[in-house]
């Protein structure tokens, strides 16, 4: 049973610096590659100076929203301005389909994440950090907890309390306000914004929320200096490197660190070895399953936010999932819609109801019982979800589905002409089982208190 490939594919090693196949899980191993040097350096600096360095680097959020990390930190009030504790929460609830980089960070360089937390804590003068890790990540939790214990025993925490809080299986808890609700011991339903977490986050106190990769990139930013970091990749907006998550129908899938700005084709063909078995690329799940799918004519697009944005794509969490010609795009859209239907928290009607409608419509197309007008009806439902909910989960269902209907309308039409799926069981995605059995939400089992 193969191990995940994790390596620096190109450019400077930042997040994975010092990792050469042997996990840097022990403090000694991490120390040997300069670990915790940046913490010491940061602590000798004025907190505001550290924030200024992050701003100058233009490091942006690696969780999907691409918000400038330094600016986010600068929104947090300083302790003299507010009589409440200041919190950091690290979003380790990695659940976006196709994303598996934060997991590898926690397994391979856990101390760099902890060092990043401690530098961030110094910068915003916080002494309370919560790392919210998805419940399924049992091994990752164990490795990270062991690293944390070792760092604590070595006296590195300097009065900062870091608590690893385990989730219990809910994609929506990766949404920052749902994460805060969940951390507070509630159902993970997103909050209305404003107020933003920087002002009123966990326990109604100022809270900085960052993705694992963003936080882990902080020590390397300080190590090479913000000016140099800002030159790497595709400046001015997409600076630094990225852990790209390559998967699907590709010869060498894995987590590859490379600078922003390499092309999708380069990642797939040169780094990933191309589509195997003589098959041809049909579509790319770009950024994650929450975004529009990429068609082969756009493969020369650079993997940076601007280049992708100009063509209507998103860099998301760095996902590039290759889909070859054997798979039916209607099945793909249906499986994606099923995922969001399952994961909708049910708070906002357009998302709760709309995702179900999308599943019904796509099921009808797949079964050949839809009609031509259903294609536009599907797009209409997407339009009635996008931008109309408290969080972007509904948008995340609507954007990929709408892109499939628009870009692959001929294939949708072929289902009607054929009276069902023309791919049949030959599609890689045929009959894929959506785990609707997990829905305990609507049934009350026997013996449960009323």
């Amino acid at each position: 049973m193969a191990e995940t490939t994790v390596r620096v594919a190109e450019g400077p090693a930042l997040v994975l610096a010092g990792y050469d196949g042997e996990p840097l899980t022990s403090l000694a191993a991490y120390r040997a590659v300069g670990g915790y040097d940046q913490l010491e350096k940061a602590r000798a600096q004025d907190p505001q100076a550290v924030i200024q360095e992050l701003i100058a680097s233009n490091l942006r959020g690696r969780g999907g929203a691409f918000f400038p990390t330094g600016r986010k930190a600068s929104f947090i009030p300083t302790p003299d301005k507010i009589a409440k504790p200041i919190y950091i929460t690290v979003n380790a609830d990695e659940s976006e389909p196709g994303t598996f980089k934060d997991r590898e960070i926690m397994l391979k360089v856990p101390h760099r994440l902890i060092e990043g937390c401690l530098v961030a804590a110094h910068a915003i003068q916080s002494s309370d950090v919560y790392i919210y890790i998805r419940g399924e990540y049992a091994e990752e939790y164990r490795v990270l907890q062991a690293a944390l214990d070792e760092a604590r025993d070595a006296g590195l925490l300097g009065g900062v309390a870091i608590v690893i809080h385990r989730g219990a299986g809910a994609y929506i808890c990766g949404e920052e306000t749902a994460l805060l609700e969940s951390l507070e011991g509630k159902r993970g339903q997103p909050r209305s914004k404003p107020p933003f977490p920087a002002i009123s986050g966990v326990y109604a106190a100022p809270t900085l929320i960052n993705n694992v990769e963003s936080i882990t990139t902080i020590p390397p930013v300080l190590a090479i200096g913000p000016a140099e970091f800002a030159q790497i990749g595709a400046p001015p907006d997409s600076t630094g490197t990225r852990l790209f998550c390559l998967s699907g129908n590709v010869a060498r899938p894995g987590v590859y660190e490379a600078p922003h700005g390499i092309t999708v084709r380069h990642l797939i063909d040169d780094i990933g070895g191309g589509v195997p078995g003589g098959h041809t690329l049909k579509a790319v799940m770009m950024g994650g399953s929450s975004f529009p799918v990429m068609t082969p004519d756009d493969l020369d697009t650079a993997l940076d936010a601007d280049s992708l944005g100009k063509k209507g794509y998103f860099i998301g969490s760095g996902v590039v999932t290759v889909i070859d010609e054997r798979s039916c795009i209607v099945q793909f859209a249906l499986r994606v819609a099923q995922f969001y239907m399952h994961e909708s928290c049910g708070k906002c009607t357009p998302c709760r109801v709309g995702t179900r409608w999308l599943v019904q419509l796509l099921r009808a197309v797949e079964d050949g019982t839809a009609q031509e007008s259903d294609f536009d009806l599907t797009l209409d439902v997407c339009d009635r979800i996008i931008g109309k909910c408290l969080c972007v989960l509904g948008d995340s269902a609507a954007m990929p589905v709408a892109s499939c209907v628009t870009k692959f309308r001929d294939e949708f039409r072929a289902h009607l002409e054929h009276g069902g799926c023309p791919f049949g069981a030959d599609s890689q995605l045929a009959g894929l089982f959506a785990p609707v059995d997990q829905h305990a939400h609507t049934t009350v089992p026997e013996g449960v208190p009323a």
Partner: protein
Amino acid sequence: MTTFYEEVQEIRTRYPEGTRSALLPALQLAQERHGWLSRQALEEVADALELTPAYCYSVASFYDMLRLEPVGTHTIEVCTNVCCGLVNAQAVLDAFERELGVGPGETTEDGEITLRAVECLGGCSTPTIVAVDHRYRQSVTPENVPAIVQELRNG
């Protein structure tokens, strides 16, 4: 031996006073002890945290990993999201169904093994990912299935 109540009080110290943050860890601990969250387990959690059982149930029912019905001694969870699907997750799930004689969401008659299909487990480059008692097995193919089941049955 520490009691459940004492362990929950220890968990509470990690979070600010007057908050409910210890609820998820307490539910997880209760599930670890009982296998699933029965009415009695929910009441123990509620007592330890000074919450109502109804509140504990309302939170527990939100999360997929918290089980409100009895489950097998072991669980086999097969990722059936897109990335594993592109590399034959359905065939792996089918193989488990044949081997165990139960469908996804069901438990074998002897109460030993629960089979589940789950959403993306975050192991997309080594499909198909199967979590056996919450430990990931990577690159699982239908051919690996009988051995995985046998291993569980042998304890």
